[in-house]
């Protein structure tokens, strides 16, 4: 006790503690200020003030609306007087001759019932009558190259209407009307993803779930060639609007890219890791070469590899897989060689004492020690590469990434974007769960 007390420098200790307090006090003020200063700098560097000017909130409305709803177009060609109904105005979603949505009654005139009791009548080739409750009847007539408008007596043009010489349009939120000399159109918005399961020409379109089950299990065949269940699966798979078959292929391609990239990288990196590990390296120069190679592969970013490889192999999933393979070879090489350096040498010594040769020592002394780590690394990267493969697919043009970027670039198929996103998220989460399960059950690394 006394020895400690004699050597205890009270003054010095106090001073060093006080110094450390002063340092902390200074740091506690300086760090938040530093961060604040950086944030202010970034605020100006990113031009956040100008962001408001560049933002297009109307696009957000389109996007959000599209995510959960679809619109049906009822269009009259004002020259021929022909009326056509189609979903999203696409050819693939056009109602066949004689088939109409239940809110359209086609006769000599076409009557379209909309929300809140509003109706639109297409009369003849040129006239339309729009009945808006609480406002009255609006009549439009196409006269050559202009459009004439008659409002109910004593009313002005309301703010939900826009009128010019050759165009009248009405926007009521959940439905819209527009007429030009060429065509008269009604858009009706409805929630959901229409035609997700079956397209209009399919015999199963519009059936409830119960009806479908009944059809699949005991009802007579709709078409003589195949059973109802097979026909349903086929109808779903070849759905022209949503192309489930192609989407599934693309998703599979993305997973495949991740699989080939990760596993190929593992196979290449393992032997190289032996050369790069200090306790196995045959020669120092070989070890250093391997290390630099790993650094180089990792340092040259996936982006650069993608650019270079697309030039050589063209767009497609293999190019993406090779880009993943190259980057991950670098990563695996580093982690594997570090694992090899940290093994317990006693096992190897023991094997050597029984006269085992080099390969046997590796196989029975080294591999069992590093295998759990290697496998769990491979699984982990396989899972995280599934997501990267989506991004790389968008760059090299393969897999679900390609479909996603294409759908985004059209700027109108947002429901498809939503569908693909959900698919990607589900796949990644599934892989996450599976790899976690495998790691926990079999590897325990």
């Amino acid at each position, binding site marked *: 006790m006394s020895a400690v007390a004699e050597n205890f420098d009270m003054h010095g200790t106090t001073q060093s503690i006080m110094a450390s307090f002063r340092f902390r006090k200074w740091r506690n003020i300086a760090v938040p200020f530093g961060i604040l200063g950086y944030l202010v700098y970034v605020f100006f560097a990113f031009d956040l003030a100008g962001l408001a000017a560049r933002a297009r909130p109307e696009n957000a409305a389109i996007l959000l609306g599209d995510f959960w709803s679809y619109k049906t177009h009822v269009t009259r060609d004002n020259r021929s007087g022909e009326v056509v109904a189609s979903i999203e105005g696409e050819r693939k979603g056009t109602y066949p001759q004689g088939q109409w949505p239940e809110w359209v009654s086609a006769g000599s005139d076409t009557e379209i019932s909309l929300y809140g009791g509003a109706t639109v009548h297409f009369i003849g080739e040129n006239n339309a009558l729009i009945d808006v409750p609480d406002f009255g009847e609006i009549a439009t007539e196409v006269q050559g190259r202009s459009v004439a408008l008659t409002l109910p007596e004593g009313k002005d043009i309301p703010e939900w209407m826009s009128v010019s010489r050759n165009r009248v349009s009405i926007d009521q939120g959940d439905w819209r009307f527009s007429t030009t000399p060429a065509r008269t159109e009604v858009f009706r918005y409805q929630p959901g993803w229409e035609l997700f399961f079956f397209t209009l020409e399919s015999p199963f379109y519009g059936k409830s779930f119960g009806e479908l089950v009944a059809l699949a299990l005991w009802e007579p065949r709709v078409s003589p060639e195949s059973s109802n269940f097979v026909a349903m699966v086929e109808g779903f798979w070849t759905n022209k609007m949503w192309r489930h078959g192609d989407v599934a292929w693309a998703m599979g391609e993305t997973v495949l890219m991740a699989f080939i990239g990760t596993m190929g990288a593992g196979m290449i990196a393992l032997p190289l890791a032996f050369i790069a590990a200090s306790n196995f390296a045959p020669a120092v120069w070989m070890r250093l070469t391997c290390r630099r190679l790993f650094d180089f592969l990792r340092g040259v970013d996936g982006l650069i590899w993608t650019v270079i490889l697309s030039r050589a192999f063209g767009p497609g999933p293999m190019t993406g897989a090779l880009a993943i393979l190259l980057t991950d070879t670098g990563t695996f090489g580093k982690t594997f060689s570090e694992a090899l350096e940290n093994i317990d040498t006693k096992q190897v010594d023991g094997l050597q004492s029984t006269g085992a040769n080099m390969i046997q020592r590796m196989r029975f002394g080294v591999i069992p020690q590093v295998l759990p780590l290697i496998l769990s690394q491979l699984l982990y990267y396989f899972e995280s590469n599934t997501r990267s493969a989506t*991004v790389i697919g968008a760059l090299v043009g393969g897999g679900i990434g390609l479909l996603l970027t294409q759908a985004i670039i059209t700027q109108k198929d947002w429901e498809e974007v939503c569908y693909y996103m959900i698919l990607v998220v589900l796949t990644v989460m599934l892989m996450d769960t599976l790899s976690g399960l495998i790691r926990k059950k079999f590897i325990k690394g």
Partner: protein
Amino acid sequence: MTAQTAPSAADYIELVRRRRLYGTILVVLFFVLFASGFSVAETRNAGGFLDGLHRIFDFPKEIFSEAFSNWRNLPSRFFAAVPALIETLNIAAISTFFGGLIGMVLAFLSTRGLALWPRLTPVFRRIMDTMRAVPEIVIALVLIYLLGGGPVPAMIAIAFHTAGALGKLFSEAAENVDLKPVEGLSSVGGNWFQRIWFGVLPQVAPNWSSYALLRFEINIRASAILGFVGAGGLGSDLKTALQWGQGKYDQVVAIFAILFLTIMIVDHLSDRARRRLVQGGTL
């Protein structure tokens, strides 16, 4: 007690043989899967593997030969790329910062024993899983549609992903904290925030900073890639230079070089910093 039959040598050999058989079957299955997968990928690719293999170096050779013939331009091209590099780094830093902050909150809300509302931990975990699973490029492209091009969409996209990824790592680290300080604080009446701030944060700070640094590295790469789809920074410059093609290859080389160097330097620095963090406690 009936004597159990002792396992004989024959049983043991049988076991080993069976295990080896399973192992072999698994390995064979794996290689079959790999080979067939590769051939599928190859047939769906524009160019074949062997056709392209000897052409891998054609493009680098082309750009490097042009760049070297104009080597006088290189230093100026290199410096011209610096503002774009700074933008890329800024995107990475800010998105790591905000992603880390959100990740912190999510981690506390989803860690057993620390959560503010213990019933809701599974909900927050699922939220983080979803955030991690959405690829950055999708969020970035959608935001570019809404907000116009520039660094902000990239920043939000990366921050969103980072929050999910760091949240998971943070919560794993927080699960292993010593709960004694927390109990001590609650015994003197500390509220949830005080318990976290004084009891947990000091314990997890080194680990968390190390994860955040690692994420910063990853985010530099991500922000370069997002630039390629129109989100500013080095990636956009690289894309314009590549689309221009011949005549701008010196710029391509300069951008490749600056990106490579940055990644190497940051890698190295953060490696050292992380090693110190984990061993020594503070930066």
